[in-house]
């Protein structure tokens, strides 16, 4: 049943950057139905490779103020439990602490959320996914970092697989101390975040866009198998 393949895989050379390249990302020579052949590079051709652009605030102050108020009242959290802190999200989202009354709710996909909670330590493997999730989120977007691990490595300060400082890889709006922070501390974090958004200080997305090259360089330094597009939204 195997049909004739219409493409030919081009074996990558043994250079350093191809060390971790996965077979599905190899360049391939595709023969079109009209007989023409062309090269397809899955990593660059299937995704948008444009850099993100910073968004200027609305020129009318009142409008911007209103927008900020509205943003602060609808914090949609991406349900991505990156570390152990995510266990405290359960009580937060259920009746006892009921974060919904503060406009906080969980969303299953990055496209619908504007707050990413990095709940503690990030292993390199998760960091890669966290970055992709973060980049898929819509601006304006915010990052809340929980626990010691995101500030200075925490318990895993000497581990070979966890990052020590989150602010090197994505812009962080609010840090909440604790190992892990209790739901109340998380709520306090939300309050602080709301305050910052209302004050117009929630500029993480713009900061990320402005310093895009710096963040990318930091990320690529530790994610050795960067076999994904630089920017994929």
């Amino acid at each position: 049943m195997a049909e004739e393949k219409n493409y030919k895989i081009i074996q990558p050379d043994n250079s350093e950057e191809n060390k971790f390249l996965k077979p599905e990302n190899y360049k391939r020579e595709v023969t079109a139905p009209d007989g023409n052949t062309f090269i397809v590079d899955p990593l660059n051709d299937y995704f948008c490779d444009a850099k993100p652009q910073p968004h200027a605030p609305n020129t009318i102050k009142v409008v911007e103020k209103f927008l900020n108020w509205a943003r602060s009242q609808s914090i949609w959290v991406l349900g991505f439990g990156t570390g152990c802190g995510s266990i405290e999200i359960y009580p937060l989202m259920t009746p006892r602490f009921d974060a919904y009354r503060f406009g906080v709710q969980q969303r299953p996909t990055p496209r619908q959320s504007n707050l990413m909670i990095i709940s503690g330590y990030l292993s390199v493997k998760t960091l890669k996914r966290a970055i992709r999730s973060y980049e898929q989120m819509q601006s304006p977007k915010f990052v809340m970092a929980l626990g010691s691990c995101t500030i200075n490595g925490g318990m895993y300060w000497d581990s070979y697989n966890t990052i020590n400082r989150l602010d090197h890889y994505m812009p962080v709006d609010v840090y909440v101390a604790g190992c892990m922070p209790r739901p109340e501390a998380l709520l306090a974090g939300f309050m602080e975040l709301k305050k910052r958004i209302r004050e117009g200080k929630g500029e993480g997305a713009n900061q990320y866009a402005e310093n895009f090259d710096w963040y990318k360089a930091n990320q690529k330094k530790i994610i050795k198998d960067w076999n994904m597009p630089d920017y994929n939204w």
Partner: protein
Amino acid sequence: MMNLKDILSPFSAWRNLLKEPVTIKDPLTERPGAPRYRGFHKNDIEKCIGCGTCETICENEAIDLVAVANVDTKNGDSGLRPLVDYGRCCWCALCVDVCTTGSLTMSNEYTWVSNDPEDFRYIPGVDKKEWDNNDLGWKKPDYTLIPTERMDMEEMEPSEREGTFLEIVRGYSRAQAEKEADRCTECGLCVATCPAHMDIPGYIRAVREGDMEEGLRLLYETNPLPEICGRVCTHRCEEVCAVGHSGDPLAIRWLKRYIADQVPFEEYKRILGITSIEENGKKVGIIGAGPSGLSAAYYLRIRGFEVTIYEAKSKGGGMTMYGIPKYRLPMNMLESEIGFLEEIGVKFVYETRVGEDISFDEIYKKHDAVFVGIGFEKPYKINIKGEEQKGALQAISFLDDINKGKKVDIGKKVAIVGGGNVAMDAARVARRLGAEVYMLYRRRVEDMPADSEEIHGAYEEGVQIIPQTIPVEIIGEGGKVKSIQYLMAEMVPDEKGGRPKPVPIEGSEQVLEIDTLIGAIGQEADYGFLPQEYLDKIETNRGRMLVDNNNKTTLDKVYAGGDAVNKTADAISAIADGHRAADAIERMLLV
């Protein structure tokens, strides 16, 4: 498999519709942490001694010790205070549980939000936080992670001690020593307090690991007389021991003694690596074979100096040989220590009193440097009437005679005047000779300068201490002491803030029948050996030679140490002096 009940049963959840909601209205203020909650740290700055045990146990290196304004470094307090990094802390509270003083605690506060990651560091107790006055939170619990009880050392029963000069304490067994050494937190507070700055945590670690050779090497780095110090040191290190804040301090002195006892003297040369000494051709003369002289001699000799010690008596050791009774320091210990020095090539010239048998001038000219470790030989007189009579002795000469093995007749009842270690020695020796001993001291028992264990030992052995007494007159009969008359004193606080002064109470005269009176109120140096031209150049203060940081006197190429220089007047300070002077002499002559 499915029935109507299965379809209807979930609807029972509607029962909850009318229930009171469980939601907490204002979780940010309504929910304090539990009374035991492990929240942010608090520290009682006054109580903390900066020992760093919290830093040692922290698996996250979350705690730094930093110098803090308003907290001074002093003996027993490093002046450092813990700084906690909440980018590392995991709230395990092990730091609280091991805190030796119990100063470090935790509040039940748990909320700290900031947008600046650099914020999350502070020094508890110094940087003001809103939870400083919060009484709830994790406290040091009622258990210990560091054993608090000292290993008891076997001692001779007090009742057996009369009539014998055998050593009282028996020394640790290996198991005991290792168990005692295990209690050490290796904080190092003791190091600075020790006059010789011995690496105490280091050699205790060696005991724990059973590496006696390493232990001995560490001892000899700063102290060439560990056998002596292991027995008679005033162990000021133990007073500042961090473990002592929550239990018994470590038996540092006994552990030192344990190391020294384990290694036979024949092995010393090999272990210390002094198999061959490269001579450097310089000569150093040392006057006095007391601890400071011996210490200087050792450190100079191993660096290749030609060292000659001039000693007036027939044996070396100074006060440790002649002043300390043998139940505290057996004679053979001293002799082997000195034998070891002889073995490595230190020349001893005994029975040569400088100023009489050899002139100071000659020594001064013959050597490239001179170290003076003459000690305090000349006892103070009590300066009361009747002191010249037979039966009125001086403690120093009394102890000297006993150690030399002379028979001294002290009769049945003996009074000792003084409250220092020498007085204690005299009293306990007199008890061993079978006399009834009374001790007259001007101040209260707690003011006594003697070590507490000496006082304790004296009590144990039946010495009767009569505090707050001022002798007035020694009453004699036929040129021999018969009784002593004294006044009771009351303690009057000193206006200048010094220690309270004893003031005699009028009309409180008492008379004590005695056969012998032993004076032990202190000694002074005897500079009789120095020719006037040198004496003029050596500045003294209250009978002590003035020296600089290198233990150099005001006279060129003359160094001094020991009791004749420093106020603390104990063996370990003398050893430190000798070491310091040896370093300075080396710098002066070789660099």
